[in-house]
């Protein structure tokens, strides 16, 4: 009897368990659906929040860049010839007067021919109320600021292209010998030229672009040769780049230390800092042209360029010849750095540090990275040029490359410490 009751209790417990299981099964799809909806809603909320974060970063850097550019416009140009007289800032009101005058003299007559007649009168009026030569200095400064902004952008984007192509956050165009090629070009110019870049800008451009490009071509040609001539091998390219860079470095050091006399060395030093290149119309024209033919294609291809970080097979199976795309990215990057160094001197460190910094601040997608590098590269180089404006040791101007290195190192260490673990 007792045993029968026990059996009945056991059976009823089994039936209850089975019913509970059936009910749970019936409710499971519904509860899973609710769970999925909640997680999808959470993901959408996160997407919106992160989108806003990225937008905030872009707006913050955009405003900071605009402010720095404005500050740069307010500084009079202090070139090699006026070394030691810098360190002043024109009042913003006077600077704006200059730009108003520039607009009246340059842009307004395009729409009204009669305004040409007022040119002399307006200049005369301006010179009565403002410091002598200020108009020329400020307008020169505007051009210099524009060129520095363009160079900052190109240096940062060139680093981004190389780091993505080599899938390595330490890659820069210098690894293919661009910087050392340019230095060799400067040495040759110091021997052949007339002393300053403004005296013979054509020869200067020929030397620096020629030797810079030649170094890259030699690396690419040799790496294709040792890779069997079929495809470029990234590691072969890097190894050869390192060898050629070291070779050029050795040649440059030997010539500077044992072959050059002191006078030629001084010329070389000024030329290597790009001296008055920044204010030469020919150099400005060439760098503007290089900007258009390199940065604009990179901008147009900014989504597709994501694929250069992936393998050729993956790219091909997504319908893209990513080997060709990577080759294009390397050529664009090397040309960008070449043009920037030829215009403002050796600041290759920017190509390494800015993409590294942006990778920490913004999403890895090339579109975000491109925008971030353009803004931060511009801002950072302008800041360095502003600092250089005041940084004098005696009458010697501190090279902008030195300022870039000093300014960047603490940021770099900070970013490495914060970003540890984001890649391996």
């Amino acid at each position: 009897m007792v045993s029968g009751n026990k059996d009945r209790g056991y059976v009823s417990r089994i039936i209850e368990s089975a019913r509970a299981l059936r009910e749970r099964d019936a409710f499971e799809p519904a509860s899973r659906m609710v769970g999925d909806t909640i997680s999808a809603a959470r993901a959408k909320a996160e997407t919106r929040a992160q989108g806003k974060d990225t937008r905030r970063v872009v707006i913050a850097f955009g405003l900071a860049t605009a402010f720095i550019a404005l500050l740069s416009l307010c500084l009079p140009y202090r070139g090699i010839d006026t070394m030691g007289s810098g360190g002043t800032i024109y009042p913003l009101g006077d600077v704006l007067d200059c730009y108003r005058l520039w607009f009246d003299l340059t842009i307004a007559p395009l729409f009204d021919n009669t305004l040409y007649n007022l040119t002399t009168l307006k200049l005369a009026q301006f010179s009565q109320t403002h410091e002598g030569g200020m108009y020329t200095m400020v307008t020169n400064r505007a051009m210099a600021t524009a060129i520095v902004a363009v160079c900052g952008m190109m240096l940062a984007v060139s680093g981004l292209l190389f780091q993505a192509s080599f899938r390595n956050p330490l890659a820069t165009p210098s690894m293919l010998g661009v910087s050392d090629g340019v230095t060799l070009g400067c040495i040759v110019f110091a021997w052949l030229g007339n002393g300053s870049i403004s005296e013979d800008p054509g020869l200067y451009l020929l030397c620096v672009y020629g030797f810079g490009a030649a170094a890259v071509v030699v690396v690419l040609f040799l790496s294709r040769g040792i890779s069997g001539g079929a495809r470029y091998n990234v590691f072969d390219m890097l190894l050869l780049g390192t060898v050629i860079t070291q070779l050029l470095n050795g040649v440059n050091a030997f010539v500077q230390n044992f072959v050059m006399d002191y006078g030629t060395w001084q010329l070389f030093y000024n030329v290597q800092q790009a001296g008055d290149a920044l204010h030469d119309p020919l150099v400005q024209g060439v760098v503007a042209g290089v900007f258009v033919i390199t940065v604009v294609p990179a901008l147009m291809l900014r989504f597709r360029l994501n694929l250069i970080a992936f393998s050729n097979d993956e790219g091909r199976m997504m319908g893209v010849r990513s080997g060709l795309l990577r080759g294009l990215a390397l050529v664009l990057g090397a040309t960008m750095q070449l043009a920037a160094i030829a215009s403002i001197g050796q600041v290759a460190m920017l190509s390494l540090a800015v993409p590294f910094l942006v990778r920490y601040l913004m999403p890895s997608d090339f579109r975000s990275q491109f925008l971030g590098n353009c803004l931060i590269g511009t801002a950072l180089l302008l800041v360095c040029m502003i600092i250089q404006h005041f940084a004098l040791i005696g009458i010697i101007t501190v090279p902008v490359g030195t300022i870039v290195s000093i300014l960047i190192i603490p940021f770099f260490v900070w970013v490495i410490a914060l970003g540890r673990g984001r890649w391996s």
Partner: protein
Amino acid sequence: MKLAVRDMSCGWETGRPVQRYVNFTVASGEICCVLGPNGCGKSTLFKTVLGLIPRQAGSVSFDGENIARWSPKKLASVMAYVSQGHTPPFPYKVRDVVLLGRTNKMGYAQPSASDYQIVDNALNDMGIYDLVEKPYTDVSGGELQLVMIARALAQQPQLLVLDEPTAALDYGNVVRVISKVRGLAKKGYGVIMTTHSPDHAFMCNSNVVLLQRNASMQFGRAVDVITERNMRDAYGVGVKIVEFMTREGEIMRMCAPVF
């Protein structure tokens, strides 16, 4: 859709094929598992079919058209490839990685709202939409594999080519990935995948291409090709094929090693 491989020889060195006279077909809604020991040429076969390495003999046709001279763009419009052991280069967000699958359809334009919608659908299909904002370097191995399959789906292909999609995954992730692959075949995709486990072919109730080092390949239904004798010949170990009935009354087969 029908992919047909006829009398194909493949290998890395000209004149020294690792596989000769490979013949098989994959149609819409079918799964084809490529089995074989290490080094028998499974990945080489895939790369040859996809045109990533040159074919030494034979032909590959898609709906009767020889694909030998197809451009990457045309090939990518019908086939998507998930490679073995993808290494993330940078911490891209999951959505950005999957969006790359749209490159072929977008040309040189930037992604549109419809591209993002297709990406979201692919992520939903793989059940990983909640990872959308995560860096794909931070997801688990199984999730990473699903992200890669979602990227392939975003290409809107007719045929998915998966090279060892379950390699280095734990048991739970293996079952999850296989379950998604079965789901994709039910939706009408043709799937061809390499695997080291004959059980996966049984789980998918698929066709099997069995490659061996020194013998000709075999192609047929899993139940016909995965036999105790064939397994011993291919892998050099004894196995027992065990059968059991699932709760739904379906007969399942598994390979059990014999020690």
